[in-house]
């Protein structure tokens, strides 16, 4: 019998721990939900436009709301591990440190996707939008964009958690880095909702795929440097 768990087992164990914690407290999920809806309400007053104009601004609105709300969730991701030295305990675990990163990425991704499943229909209802295109394409855009945001955000959340005033630091360091995701998410969503042909906005989907791959690989290398004591 070996004491060293395999990489997937280590990821699984930490993921289950995080999800169980989240299931009991619903800390991230409820914050995401409420904050994103509040942003929607703010937008409805800020852009008091005619329904035709709304179609143009809706993709931007929904992603800004998701990413702003996602920032709240990311703030909790590693901050909660700072209490009682939990992070040090995880780092002492007999596995590669990037396992911590992957567990956190999957956990954050699941929580954010779950909240998007609730939020997206609500946004469509509130702003009277209809989806003419394929729902699978919408799901693909949502998944790719959310993953890109979470992949970078989780790494930077681990970075910010080790600095002073991490809640203030995190948005300042995350937003400049995720601008390509914001652009690609908004452009591809606009393409889908305005009924453009897929070839016209496929380039943005490709950008999202490329971004996701790059920012899964780079943190994989860098994460162990981040968590040295």
């Amino acid at each position, binding site marked *: 019998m070996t004491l060293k768990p395999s990489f997937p087992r280590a990821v699984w164990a930490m993921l289950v721990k995080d999800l169980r914690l989240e299931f009991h407290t619903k800390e991230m999920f409820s914050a995401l939900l409420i904050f994103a809806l509040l942003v929607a309400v703010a937008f409805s007053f800020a852009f008091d436009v005619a329904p035709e104009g709304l179609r143009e601004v809706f993709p931007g609105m929904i992603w800004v709301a998701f990413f702003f709300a996602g920032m709240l969730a990311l703030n909790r991701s590693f901050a909660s591990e700072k209490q009682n030295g939990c992070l040090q305990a995880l780092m002492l675990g007999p596995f590669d440190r990037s396992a911590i990163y992957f567990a956190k990425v999957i956990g954050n991704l699941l929580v954010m996707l779950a909240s998007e499943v609730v939020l997206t229909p609500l946004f469509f209802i509130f702003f009277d939008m209809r989806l003419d295109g394929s729902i699978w394409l919408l799901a693909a855009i949502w998944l790719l964009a959310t993953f890109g945001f979470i992949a*970078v955000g989780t790494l930077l959340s681990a970075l910010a958690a080790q*600095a*002073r*005033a991490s809640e203030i630091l995190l948005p300042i*360091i995350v937003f*400049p*880095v995720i601008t390509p995701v914001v652009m690609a998410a908004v452009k591809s969503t606009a393409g889908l909702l305005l009924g453009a042909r897929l070839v016209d906005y496929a380039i943005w989907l490709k*950008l999202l795929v490329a971004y996701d791959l*790059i920012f899964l690989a780079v943190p994989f290398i860098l994460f162990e440097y981040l968590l040295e004591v």
Partner: protein
Amino acid sequence: MPQAKGPARDMTQTLGLLAAVAVFVALGLVFLWVPAERVMGDVQRIFYFHVASAWNAFLAFLVVFVASIAFLRSGSHRWDTLAYCSAEIGVVFTTITLITGPIWARPIWNTWWSWDPRLTTTLILWFIYLAYLVIRSSAEGSQQQSRLAAVFGIIGFVDVPIVFMSTRWWRSIHPTLIQTDKMNMEPSMVFTMVFSFVSFTILYAFLLSYRVRLETLAERAAALKRDLRR
């Protein structure tokens, strides 16, 4: 205790002298020698220092990237100091680029700012390296500060080409100077531009060596203070 040595004073002074002469000559070339552009007139003269500043900013951030990797691999404090000082200088030159650009754009494009790829990328670049400096000032303990900053220095630089690609797919109104087949400029203007590039690069080298020397001396002073208190 082994004392970290910064760049020698002689080298810094020589670079400073060279930079002063080169920048003065460049000023002469830009304002007195090179002819005014036919369509844009005198306002085009700002272009020589604008592009040279942009080049310096890019060079500085490349140095941050390379020094960050070298620091994470070797753990040597000197790389970290180099990355930090280069990032500071890079932010200064990005700021100069962002200020000189609109001064030119106002009479030529009839607007201070446009969300053109190069402008947008430069602005985001500025935000990324401001964030880098914020990380440096908010981490506890110098060792940790260096590691966090190095990780961000790598992430930020990897992100820049992606930002540029994504902003490019909007229509661009920024003039393209260097096309693949020929230069779109008069020979005396090319010469002035190349000279500005070279003199600004020397200026960057001087500022970097000066700043690294200052940082090293500050660290030595801090170490001496600690010893005295003990």
